[in-house]
């Protein structure tokens, strides 16, 4: 396809992409036409949103119900002091718009739950999980599978982080973690420490994996989880496969809609 369909400004802005064999003009147009939903605009969502906006993803949906607190600014670099005590999605939408005015941003101030997840996710090509609860991860995984959308998962805990991509039919979050952690298990929260740049690494890899999904290039982190330990400075890869007995994506699925989701994650219900 000819490069002519990019404007002169786009050819300058995305010049470094146009020089890449794996992107080029066709890949850039694909990025410009694509849409990504980022669920959670915190530590992981900050770098993911910044790098996807910089890359020229056409439409970015930002979902978060929370407001910006001072203790977020230690790592959530999309936010600013001016946005304190205000909606995270509004603050993030402003930063993204200032970086790349071409991007259409949907600022969705909401909690993703079993009632709105299908409707929200179905509007986008790729879903980025930047949430910080086990509950939300199972929910997004089920919803993405039911809609047959790729889901780019990332999570951090203290000094460790992980990232992987769930492509429908090749495994989901339940294949990786069949059992939710026991009630009372510690998850990422205000009571757990974190070093500022750790989510930068994980969230940025999530952005790279999203770009690879959109441009259909490279080897995606499918069927493998990349595990990072910041203190030891090590990266390790663990392989996993689709679980034939998975209630969501297995051979005899029992989750056919998010209405079935509560029963399946019942063990978690006391924790949310």
């Amino acid at each position: 396809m000819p490069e002519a369909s990019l404007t002169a400004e786009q050819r300058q802005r995305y010049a470094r992409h146009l020089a890449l064999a794996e992107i080029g003009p066709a890949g850039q147009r694909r990025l410009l036409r694509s849409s990504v939903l980022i669920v959670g605009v915190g530590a992981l969502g900050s770098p993911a949103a910044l790098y996807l906006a910089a890359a020229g993803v056409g439409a970015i949906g930002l979902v978060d119900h929370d407001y910006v607190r001072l203790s977020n600014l230690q790592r959530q670099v999309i936010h600013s002091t001016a946005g304190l005590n205000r909606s995270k999605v509004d603050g993030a939408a402003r930063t993204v718009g200032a970086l790349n005015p071409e991007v259409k941003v949907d600022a969705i101030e909401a909690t993703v739950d079993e009632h709105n997840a299908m409707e929200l996710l179905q509007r986008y090509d790729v879903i980025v999980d930047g949430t910080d609860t086990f509950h939300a991860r199972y929910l997004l995984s089920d919803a993405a599978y039911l809609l047959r959308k790729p889901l780019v998962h990332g999570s951090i805990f203290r000094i460790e982080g992980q990232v992987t991509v769930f492509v429908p039919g090749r495994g989901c979050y339940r294949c990786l973690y069949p059992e939710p952690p026991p009630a009372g298990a510690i998850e990422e929260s205000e009571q757990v420490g974190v070093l500022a740049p750790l989510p930068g690494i994980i969230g940025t890899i999530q952005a790279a994996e999203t770009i690879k999904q959109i441009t259909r290039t490279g080897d995606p982190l499918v069927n493998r989880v990349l595990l990072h330990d910041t203190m030891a400075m090590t990266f390790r890869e663990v392989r996993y496969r689709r679980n034939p007995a998975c209630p969501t994506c297995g051979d005899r699925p029992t989750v056919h809609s998010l209405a079935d989701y509560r029963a399946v994650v019942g063990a978690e219900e006391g924790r949310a």
Partner: protein
Amino acid sequence: MTADRHHRQRILAEVGEAGQQRLERASVAIVGLGGLGSPVALYLAAAGVGRLGLIDDQQVELSNLNRQILFEDCDVGRPKVEAAAGRLLILDSGLRLDARKETVGASNVEAIVAEYDLVVDATDSFETKFLLNDAAVLLRKPLVHGAVLRWGGQATTVLPDGPCLRCLFREPPDPADIETCEEAGIIGAASGVVGSVQAEEALKVILNVGTPLSGRIFHHDGLRGETRITTFPRDSDCPVCSPRARITDLSRYDEQVSPRGHVRS
């Protein structure tokens, strides 16, 4: 406690109250405010490093914005150091920033490296990378090196008495053999990963915790989704950090090293 900006680091065993104070007293020179310097500056500022030297001689260009997330569309044409300082101050108005619109060369490298506790090499020039390495070794300052191209890059940490960049590569490559970022292209997320690793390394060295990438080099290939860390020893014949060093004095650097970074015989 949540009213505290750095609460999440204070409660981390590896940082704690003492570590956070250490970060606040620390100073870091970030040489180069591009693809690598963007995440380095944002994350070191967010983490609470008390003083940052922002060193770059360029202006923001539209073609920077596919990866240099420190800048905004309206910054095009402004000096990078000025735009970066403005962006970092909206994140934390209490930061101490030295915006230095300078080209780092043999004449000023000593003053820059001597003034800060640690140097982050976020440049895109091999000559400058070797100059910073030599200055850091001679002045016994820790240096966090990073480089990126296309979908990936590398990072390593040079500590006083540890292996240095010349132990690994000896001399900068011939300019005819290297592709620039302009020719080869680059994806923003590649510089984001390497720059964030550099920020982690800088924090660990300041805090004196964990295992830094000293004598180890991190390679990232975002296209393959692969990350490798390989080790390298100190070279007993290294031109700058061995007992047989030929580069011995920054004031005579021009006599000892060619403008391209090669050791003069």
